[in-house]
């Protein structure tokens, strides 16, 4: 049985993100980037401006700080690692084609190992997994009947007519793993001619997560199971046909 249930999964990007409590200084960031260089041959500096919403009383308002982070990537640009000083974070991304969970998580554990050896322990305040899916529907009709493909969509009175565009955003608890699910779904233009598309963006994260590696890995794997459950619940069989399920 293939690890991936579909021949053409609609995943456009998969992300594992770790957010830390305290800012990361530039010396540490430089050290980590250098240690990760063998895994990511391409290195770009990210320059950003932070505008804090939560201001400390002792600091003047508004406050802007320029910070540099790193965008590390593979030569084909499908494997990306973002290191940011503020918000202090390590974010690993995989663009399509999605290689399957084993490879994706395997890369994360390798990167995390390099991080820990370079930086040591830093308090983690959030662990999250995010999958962005785009479902391309072949149709010449400007109106797409979302209920044929999705189980997540806004409900409006029929007398108002079919929707041409929408966006749904919701947050729910996933109690069994103590996480918050942020679910975004919307109609988007498809990059394919003669198609329309829906995005299902699933972000599952845990604040105050475990701090040791084994527990973090276990949490991420449990989030993955939950993410799959959420995704399968959000789509219909008609959508599944588009991804070409492996026949058992």
């Amino acid at each position: 049985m293939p690890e991936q249930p579909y021949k053409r999964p609609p995943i456009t990007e998969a992300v594992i993100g770790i957010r830390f409590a305290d800012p990361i200084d530039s010396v540490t960031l430089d050290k980590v980037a250098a240690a990760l260089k063998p895994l990511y041959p391409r290195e770009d500096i990210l320059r950003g401006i932070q505008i804090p919403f939560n201001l400390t009383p002792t600091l003047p308002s508004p406050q802007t700080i320029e910070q540099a982070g790193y965008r590390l990537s593979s030569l084909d640009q499908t494997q990306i690692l973002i290191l940011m000083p503020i918000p202090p974070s390590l974010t690993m991304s995989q663009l399509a084609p999605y290689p399957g969970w084993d490879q994706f998580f395997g890369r994360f554990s390798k990167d995390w190992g390099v991080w820990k050896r370079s930086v040591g322990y830093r308090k983690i305040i959030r662990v999250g997994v995010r999958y962005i899916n785009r479902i391309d529907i072949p149709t010449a009709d400007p109106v797409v009947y979302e209920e044929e493909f999705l189980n997540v969509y806004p409900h409006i009175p029929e007398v108002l007519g079919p929707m041409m565009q929408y966006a749904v955003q919701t947050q729910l608890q996933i109690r069994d793993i103590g996480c918050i699910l942020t679910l975004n779904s919307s109609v988007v233009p498809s990059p394919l001619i003669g198609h329309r598309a829906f995005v299902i963006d699933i972000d599952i994260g845990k604040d105050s997560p475990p701090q040791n590696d084994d527990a973090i890995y276990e949490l991420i794997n449990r989030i993955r199971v939950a993410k799959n459950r959420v995704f399968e619940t959000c789509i219909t069989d008609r959508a599944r046909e588009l991804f070409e399920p492996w026949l058992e």
Partner: protein
Amino acid sequence: MAGVVVNPQIPTVLGPSVPPRLEAFSAETNEIARLVAGLRNEPSPGSLRSTPRLAPDEQPLEARLFDALAAVKILTAQVAMHLDGEWRRKLFGQLDSLHDPEEWESGAEPVTQSSFATFLKAILSVRPKRRPGLGLSHSGNLIAAWTTRRDRLTIEFLPNDRVRWVLARYRDTEEEPARYAGHTHVSELVEGLSPHHPEHWFSDASKNHEPS
């Protein structure tokens, strides 16, 4: 929660942008809008790009070429689920070869995102079994060429979803070919080519040419 602007360059060339909305004026409405915006997921890491500090003509050539290649490879990721893995890998090899700094012509432009977006739409619409040979115009438009014996099909991918193509078919007894050309929106490419039996170039069986 702190907000961070990191110059996101979200690739929107594969589709139109969201139309702007009217701004609200009341504080309560704006607070509601802020809470709703808080539900939105942040830009994905794949969409974050560094903004070059130097203008393109001030950047070292290798950096300029790499940035252009990176941009189109990220674009390809948006449709990679619809591409054969080997097809994609060889496409990247061809693109890398086209942007070899050792072969670069001074003053030329690397492949533009807009042209490449048109190329992706065309390829996913036409779905040729045979990959084309690739070239690059001086202004950065990707050019795809299929050759079957002496017969040639050439398509240039222009910005804003436009394509222009010309094909030449030689009859055995004639030295001069019959030439046909078109200049259309990419959505009309299949229709434009269909009277000329494009399978003559696109099918696996059509691979029959002599390298020079």
